[in-house]
């Protein structure tokens, strides 16, 4: 029965990942990230994704701070933040976020404040969606590991 739970969780995780790929939320770069996880770095993916969350939230705060400033005009500074967000999103395979960054950058280069605000809202929405999905995935992975550990209890 416990083995069945492990397999069921694995299937659920694969289904969730397949959905995220199908929706275009993730791309093959995420697969490369998974391939870098091994016995020497067993938590590599979750470590990198958690750094991504931490850095992304800083960047989103900075971007919102810039755009909410009535006297905002430093589009070059905004461009730097967007490029950084784009680069880190590309690194983990966050395809939809990356694509929104491209549109955001275009609006920034045209000094289009309204366009930037729209792009930022989209970005925040997309980021929340991705973060929730990753949390689901990592929770399933933890449950799977616990179930796998319980399957082979240590005997004295």
């Amino acid at each position, binding site marked *: 029965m416990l083995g069945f739970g492990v397999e069921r969780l694995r299937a659920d995780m694969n289904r969730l990942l397949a959905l995220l790929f199908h929706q275009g939320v993730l791309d093959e770069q995420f697969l490369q990230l998974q391939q*870098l996880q091994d016995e020497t770095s067993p938590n590599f993916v979750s470590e990198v994704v958690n750094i991504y969350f931490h850095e992304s939230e800083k960047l989103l705060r900075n971007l919102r701070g810039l755009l909410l400033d009535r006297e905002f005009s430093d589009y070059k500074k905004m461009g730097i933040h967007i490029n950084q967000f784009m680069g*880190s999103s590309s690194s*983990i395979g966050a395809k939809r976020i990356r694509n929104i960054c491209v549109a955001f950058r275009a609006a920034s280069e045209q000094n289009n404040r309204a366009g930037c605000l729209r792009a930022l809202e989209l970005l925040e929405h997309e980021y929340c969606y991705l973060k929730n999905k990753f949390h689901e995935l990592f929770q399933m992975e933890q449950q799977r590991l616990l179930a796998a550990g319980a399957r082979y209890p240590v005997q004295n």
Partner: protein
Amino acid sequence: MVNSCVSLYRSNTMEFGNSSTANGSVSGSVSPKTLSVLIVDEDPIIRRTNIALLNRFGLQINVAENGKEAVDLYSAGAYFDIVFMDMEMPIMDGPMATKEFRNMGVTSMIVGLASRSLDSEIHEFIGAGLNGCHVKPLNNAKITSVLQELIASIY
């Protein structure tokens, strides 16, 4: 193919060290040289993922968080076979650091990593003295291509 290229590099660029034997005489020993790489990027995610990627190729890896840190490493006597240089960084960006390296006479292979592919900024970056430029993110195929170029330039 890359592994054979890296092995060929190692077998042809040996470093000789001396070790003492039991009777006190000195004998030479040969150890293969490992390709050394410097990753220059302010983003911790990109540094972390690039370190993991490059580790798979058996390379010796160092990091710097901006162009100035990278230049300071060379000024202190360090040398790296390949430098992966981000374009936009605080304190000293990629184009400035690359120009500085070339002015210092640095002959390392410098590969730019940019977040855009068609831009006047890319041309300026390449013009600063890069050996090549790739759009982020780095992946196995791009690393293989860089290593092949490096090996080809040696032979």
